[in-house]
């Protein structure tokens, strides 16, 4: 720092001395003082004193210190000067927007997190909510690597048995998903976590509210500013899982045959359609020559070509498939380096009477799965005009065109689940690990190769599957916005009326190939098409009033709101076998007249009518109290219980304002706050829940009563048993915490302890089987759930050396989630079954979606161990030995137990920012601890009888043998049953902990003096890498495993991994 004196070579005219103090009149050390327009500068000493040499009596001093607002002081002839710097408590000055009003975080008494807008654009993603992971405490975000796929976002745990998605509000208008938003258009993000903050949204607030506000011009005259942000990057799919190579797979097939024979006390009979019948397995030269398998030697390809046929409609299939003895990398074959580009333009400006923001953006993001691509084009126009001093009119408007190509697991009818079902479905990623590597991608004459060659069971060629979906398209056109009028009849009284809405039009079509290359082929060429629209609207009227009388400050809000969550219609059709499979020919008209199906639906949406009010009072910025109440009525519920009232109270005490705290100058700001409140939830209830209904459905209730063989007569069945008395779920939250700023803003520390209890949780009480299997069970208010946790945020800023500033932000959240009751007599709710395994049982006193099954205590190592162990069906050498949980000497269903939870106990993130002169560097790490993953993909790859012949994981090389007993990998053998792959057990349950270096970026801001020459206001270039590494012991591709349902998640059956990407970005403003 002292070096700076050396550059001060100007003649010494005057000496100016002074002192820098804070508002508490204490000296501030380390403040940089520079004479404006020169390189002359100094730094205040330990007591805040400084002296500097000035040339002119009109020199301006620029003062800046960490944790304080920069200030300029004109010397105006003085030679001795005292300067008071105001604290710059950035975190507390952040604006909290609730959708109906806004306040500074300093005044907020609720639990709110805000996200910096620049953090939202740092890592490119399809959905802006992916950027929330690790950046806001109390928020759990689990995303998949598929662009455009929705993420699982949970705020303060899981308060309901289904659909715990938060409420998203954009510019005051509630929406179901936010994938239509361009991240660059977002000005502020507030996450309302507890009742005190969120109860203003009453009946829909229980899962938290995420409020986005888009950019507007500033409220002062300002010339047009144009910004450009561009980004280009690529995503590297990385490597797949380690699988056995062709020779190893053949050898292990023989090992399995041998092990099976040993287990059964017989002599092994070696044999496989490809590997021969000898005592050692031999790889063939050809896997399939016109149906013959295991062909060794040469084949007369010219002669074979004449018999070649891959058209099932033209007769028997005839292929020639050569063995790929080097092994096919199936994962590599279906993935690619995926480019991404994004360009955004912003135009903002204003006059005294008007202000505007226009945004244009285009994002093209390819997925690592070939053909998978997400594109989004947006146009935004926000403006506001003062019609008079008292009247303002404004609008926010956005048009979005979004398309998703070749997505795995798309669910168009449920945007919240888009792409999520891949995680727990048998998709192309799983196929890549099931296809034996000896199978080449193509046959000798250009057709697909596959499991039609004998001996490899039934996986389907994933390259063919990808190629088959390359023309699958799904796109939406979306109009969103609101228009509002504000009237301020007297100062600080604002009457506001806003009407907003969203119109979404979706279109989708997809093809399925008529296959020939697999052992199990699609029977027909299939085509389906869908179109639908949805319109939602919200009409909001509020009165805001603020008044300060002396030390008393009052803010009041009252409002009325009516809305419809979205009404619409949709039509879909499917058909098979068009005359030509040219995609320019295929329509629903040109498919075959047999097997053509047309469906449509109508959806009236759900209406809400609500009144709400909020009153905030603060005394001397020291004592704060706040009360909120909202009364909601909703069409979701029957007349008996249609309305719900949701109050919340909170208070805060700014201790640092008290005199007794003056003696603790290292505490710049300290606020203790607490609150209690109730929020409602009804997401998990079908709007038809109040009605008992019947339906006709061709798949459920038609019958060919006339014996025609080709047509069926419509029949009826009960589709729903209603519960007219269902009412709101109530979430009661209590929380206490503090926010502080220490050492003059060098440290910020905020801690929030929260508790969220759900009562009257709506639960689809399992119907007794005597009521059949088709009627949807009514949701009944019977369950209770408990969530509690701690949210922590720590910020440390400062400078390491002069000009090298840093800021470290760490967030952490602890979560304890538990189901505390179901209905009377019900102790659990089972999850989905995959290939005979049921990984999840939602059970009493355990977290949601907890894993449940047999606990493996080891593998049976000796026949004497088998004999002495508790009686276990199928017990044998190298097989799973289960714990006798109830100690009755028999292993049966009663010995299943809790095996772990997919809900992380701790999630957190750390951002480090460094700035050195024009350079900035930032890095972001996310961590998730304490959760488990059910790696069900191991069922497919780690057991010989799980579709015998399919590819095998390299893990089996460490499987149990009499000489390799120190392993947890069971013996590789033919038995499929209770003690092998037949039951879900702890073998599948893996530690889900991970630490991910999520992003690292380096930027350079071009100096102003360079820019002015070329007419730019600012320019920054940056390079970044994302998902640089992940530290985890998880054996699957990626530990970020979510799921489509709260009662069934954390199960990995071939998740699209989140992989490394590299980006270059450029930001300009004119």
């Amino acid at each position: 720092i002292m070096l700076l004196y050396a550059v001060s070579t100007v003649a010494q005219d005057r000496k100016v001395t002074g002192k820098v103090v804070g508002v508490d009149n204490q000296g501030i050390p380390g403040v940089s003082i520079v004479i404006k327009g020169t390189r002359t500068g100094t730094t205040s000493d330990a007591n805040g004193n400084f002296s500097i040499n000035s040339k002119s009596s009109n020199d301006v001093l620029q003062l800046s210190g960490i944790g304080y607002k920069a200030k300029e002081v004109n010397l105006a002839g003085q030679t001795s000067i005292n300067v008071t710097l105001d604290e710059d408590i950035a975190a507390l000055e952040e604006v909290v927007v609730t959708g109906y009003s806004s306040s500074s975080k300093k005044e907020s008494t609720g639990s709110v997190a805000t996200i910096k807008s620049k953090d939202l654009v740092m890592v490119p993603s399809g959905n802006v909510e992916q950027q929330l992971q690790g950046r806001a405490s109390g928020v759990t975000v689990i995303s998949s690597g598929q662009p455009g796929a929705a993420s699982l976002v949970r705020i303060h745990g899981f308060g309901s048995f289904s659909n715990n998605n938060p409420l998203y509000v954009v510019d005051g208008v509630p929406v179901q998903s936010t994938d239509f938003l361009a991240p660059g258009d977002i000005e502020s993000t507030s996450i309302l976590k507890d009742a005190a903050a969120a109860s203003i949204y009453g009946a829909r607030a229980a899962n938290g509210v995420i409020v986005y506000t888009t950019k507007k011009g500033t409220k002062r005259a300002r010339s047009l500013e144009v910004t450009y942000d561009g980004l280009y990057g690529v995503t590297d799919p990385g490597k797949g899982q380690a699988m056995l190579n062709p020779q190893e797979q053949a050898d292990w097939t023989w090992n399995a045959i041998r092990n099976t024979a040993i287990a059964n006390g017989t002599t092994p009979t070696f044999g496989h359609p490809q590997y021969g019948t000898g005592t050692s397995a031999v790889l063939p030269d050809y896997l399939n020559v016109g149906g013959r398998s295991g062909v060794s030697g040469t084949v007369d390809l010219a002669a074979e070509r004449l018999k070649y046929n891959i058209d099932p409609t033209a007769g028997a299939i005839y292929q020639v498939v050569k063995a790929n003895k080097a092994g096919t990398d199936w994962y590599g074959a279906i993935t690619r380096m995926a480019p991404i580009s994004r360009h955004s333009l912003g135009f903002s400006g204003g006059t005294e009477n008007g202000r505007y923001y226009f945004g244009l953006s285009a994002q093209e993001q390819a997925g690592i799965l070939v053909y998978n691509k997400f594109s989004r084009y947006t146009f935004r126009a926000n403006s506001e005009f003062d019609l008079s001093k008292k009247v303002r009119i404004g609008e926010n408007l956005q048009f979005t065109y979004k398309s998703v190509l070749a997505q795995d697991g798309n669910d168009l009818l449920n945007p919240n689940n888009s792409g999520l079902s891949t995680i727990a479905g048998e998709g192309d990623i799983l196929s890549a690990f099931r296809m034996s590597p000896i199978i080449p991608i193509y046959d000798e004459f250009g057709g697909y190769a596959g499991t039609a060659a004998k001996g490899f069971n039934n996986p389907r060629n994933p390259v063919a599957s990808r190629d088959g979906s390359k023309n699958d398209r799904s796109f939406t056109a979306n109009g969103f916005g609101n228009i509002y009028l504000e009237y301020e009849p007297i100062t600080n009284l604002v009457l506001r009326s806003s009407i907003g809405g969203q119109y979404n039009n979706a279109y989708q079509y997809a093809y399925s190939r008529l296959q020939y290359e697999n052992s199990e082929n699609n029977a027909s060429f299939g085509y389906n098409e869908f179109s639908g629209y949805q319109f939602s609207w919200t009409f909001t009227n509020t009165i805001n009033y603020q008044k300060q009388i002396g030390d008393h400050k009052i803010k009041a809000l009252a409002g009325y709101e009516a809305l419809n969550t979205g009404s619409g219609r949709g039509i879909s059709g499917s058909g098979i076998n068009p005359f030509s499979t040219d995609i320019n020919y295929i329509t629903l008209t040109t498919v075959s007249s047999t097997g053509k199906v047309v469906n449509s639906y109508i959806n009236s949406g759900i209406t809400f009518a609500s009144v709400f009010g909020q009153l905030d009072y603060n005394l001397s910025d020291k004592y704060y109290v706040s009360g909120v109440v909202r009364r909601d009525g909703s069409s979701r519920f029957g007349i008996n219980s249609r309305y719900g009232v949701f109050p919340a109270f909170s208070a805060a005490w700014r201790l640092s304002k008290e005199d007794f705290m003056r003696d603790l100058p290292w505490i710049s700001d300290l606020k203790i706050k607490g609150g209690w409140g109730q929020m409602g939830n009804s997401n998990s209830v079908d709007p038809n829940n109040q009605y008992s209904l019947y339906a006709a459905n061709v798949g459920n209730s038609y019958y060919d009563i006339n014996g025609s063989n080709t047509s069926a007569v419509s029949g009826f069945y009960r589709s729903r048993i209603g519960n007219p008395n269902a009412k709101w779920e109530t979430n009661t939250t209590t929380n206490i915490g503090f926010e502080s700023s220490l050492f003059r803003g060098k440290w910020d520390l905020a801690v929030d302890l929260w508790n969220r209890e759900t009562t009257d949780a709506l639960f689809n009480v399992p119907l007794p089987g005597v009521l059949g299997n088709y009627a949807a069970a009514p949701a009944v208010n019977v369950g209770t759930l408990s969530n509690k946790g701690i949210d922590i945020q720590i910020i440390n800023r400062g400078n390491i050396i002069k000009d090298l500033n840093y800021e470290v932000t760490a967030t952490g959240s602890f979560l304890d989630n538990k189901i505390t009751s179901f209905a009377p007599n019900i102790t659990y709710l089972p999850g989905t079954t995959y290939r005979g395994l049921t990984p999840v049982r939602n059970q009493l006193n355990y977290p949601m979606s907890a894993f449940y099954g047999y606990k493996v205590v080891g593998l049976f190592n000796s026949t004497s161990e088998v004999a002495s162990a508790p009686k276990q069906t199928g017990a044998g050498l190298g097989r799973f030995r289960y714990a006798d949980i109830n100690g009755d000497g028999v292993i049966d269903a009663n010995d299943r137990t809790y095996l772990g939870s997919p809900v992380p106990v701790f999630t957190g993130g750390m951002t480090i920012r460094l700035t050195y002169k024009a350079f900035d560097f930032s890095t972001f790490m996310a961590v998730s601890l304490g959760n488990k993953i059910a790696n069900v993909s191991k069922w497919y790859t780690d057991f010989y009888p799980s579709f015998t012949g399919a590819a095998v994981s390299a893990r089996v090389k460490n499987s149990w043998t009499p000489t390799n007993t120190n392993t947890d990998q069971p013996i590789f053998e033919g038995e499929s049953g209770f003690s092998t792959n037949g039951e879900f057990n702890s073998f599948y349950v893996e530690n889900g902990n991970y630490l991910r270096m999520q992003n690292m970026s380096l930027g350079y801001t071009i100096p102003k003096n360079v820019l002015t020459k070329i007419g730019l206001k600012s320019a920054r270039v940056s390079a970044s890498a994302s998902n640089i590494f992940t530290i985890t012991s998880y054996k699957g591709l990626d530990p970020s495993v979510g799921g489509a349902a709260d009662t069934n998640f954390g199960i990995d059956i071939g998740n699209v991994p989140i992989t490394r990407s590299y980006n270059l970005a450029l930001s300009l403003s004119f």
Partner: protein
Amino acid sequence: CKDSFLEVPPTGQLANAQLTSKAGIEGSLIGAYSMLNGRGVRLASSANWVFGSILGGEANKGTNSGDYTAINPIQRFETPPTNTEINDTWRVKYEGIQRCNTTLASLAKAGSDVTADDKKRISGEARFLRGHYYFELKKLYNNVPYIDESMDYGTGIEKVSNATDVWPKIEADLKYAMDNLPETQAAAGRANKWAAAAYLGKAYLFQKKYTEAKAMFDQVIASGKTANGKKYGLVTKYAQIFNAENDNNEESVFAIQSAANTGSVNNANSDDDLNYPYNTGSSGPGNCCGFFQPSFELANSFRTDANGLPLLDGSYNSTANALKTDFGIQSSAAFTPDAGNLDPRLDHSVGRRGIPYLDWQDHPGFDWIRDQSYAGPYSPKKYIYYKSQEGTLTDGSSWTRGYAAMNKPLIRYADVLLMAAECEIEIGSLETARNYVNLVRARAANPASWVTKNGAPAAKYVISTYTAAWTDKAVARTAVRFERKLELSGEGHRFFDLVRWGIAESTINAYLSYEGAKLITALGSAKFTANKNEYLPIPQTQIDIQGKDILKQNPGY
């Protein structure tokens, strides 16, 4: 805000009140019929390919050990009460019952557009179907709660225990149906008076009420006709029973109607979509998945002696008599099929190497079997569609081609004759019994219906009727029971027959020990436990929901 703003009516569905019109009630009844095939819940089909045929030893699961593992413990008689299939089956049967009850309840509220005749017919059909579904539950689970149209959600339906025997209720429903249904119906698929009579006879037979049963069967044999007005009889060619082109023939007493290309494969034989040879490509049917492979024991049973009669002494499994198979022989290696005397029904019932597989091609053996060492060398054959029917009598709109549209007979006239024969043996004339059996055998013996290869019988078919008079009840019983095995194999009857005859333990354990020695992984060391395995366990999920005081678990589980 007006309350009307918050009243949003449901869309695309109906309220109960809308179902009390004639069309609504007729639609409810169709819905009740539609549950017969389980609607894609494969094991819940009334055709009972797992619970009737596989448990009865006619077949095993097929495919390989890792596929559809829920069936593995079932076929080994190790079914845990937590098995998902038994819970699904339970719910499907009750869904059928619920739909019958909805129909009956709506009928009680029907307006004047529903005539007295309509009421008789509709209530008759609904009660026939309800009787059928309870009959299914009775056979499968034995102790089941009885729910009629007076009970519903919210009125204590979950409190009905399974302690009361439902046989009287089944009889009452079937009796009502017989008394109220017309002899012929406008639609071939409807239950008629004679279907009800045959079913009632079957219900009596299951309870060993031979007198009542015989009375029913006598009437059915004397006067019965199909819903579409054909006098009951046996179709001339055995294979024509299982051909969609010949559905609703004179032999069809009551059948699950099946249709292709209706917009959902659930209206075709969705219970059978897995039950085709494996990896056939386009040269075979279905092309998936190798399930439901006939057993060695069943195939051997078709051995006939020099006189063309079955080996009733059980010697068909001896090394000398057992069918020659290609077990362990690759398709590329030479194989000559069995040259001994065989009942021609073998090659309508069991797909085996070297014999034409309908009009597809000769069965190639190993290459069409997913895992021979696991499930043996045979393929299912009865409910397989013909190559010529691909696309017209099959539904290709789903993931395999294996959605066929032939009806699944639940009771066919040959079954009636054989049941009547049982009654005759117990309380009537042995000679009448022999006559009934001979009618069935004579049809099988029709050379015109034999499987041919190159213009000649595909194997050495030697079959004849019982020419010698029957004088010994026990011998006659054995002959009738064996005839049922041969005639009705793969049609879902065998296990229930063995249980009602009281010979399940001995027969099945003999089967398991014979078959288990060959198919070690699938069936090795499996065992049938008497006084337990006669019935499935009550699903644990249902006990958990309703309470163990309401639903008492079956003995042994």
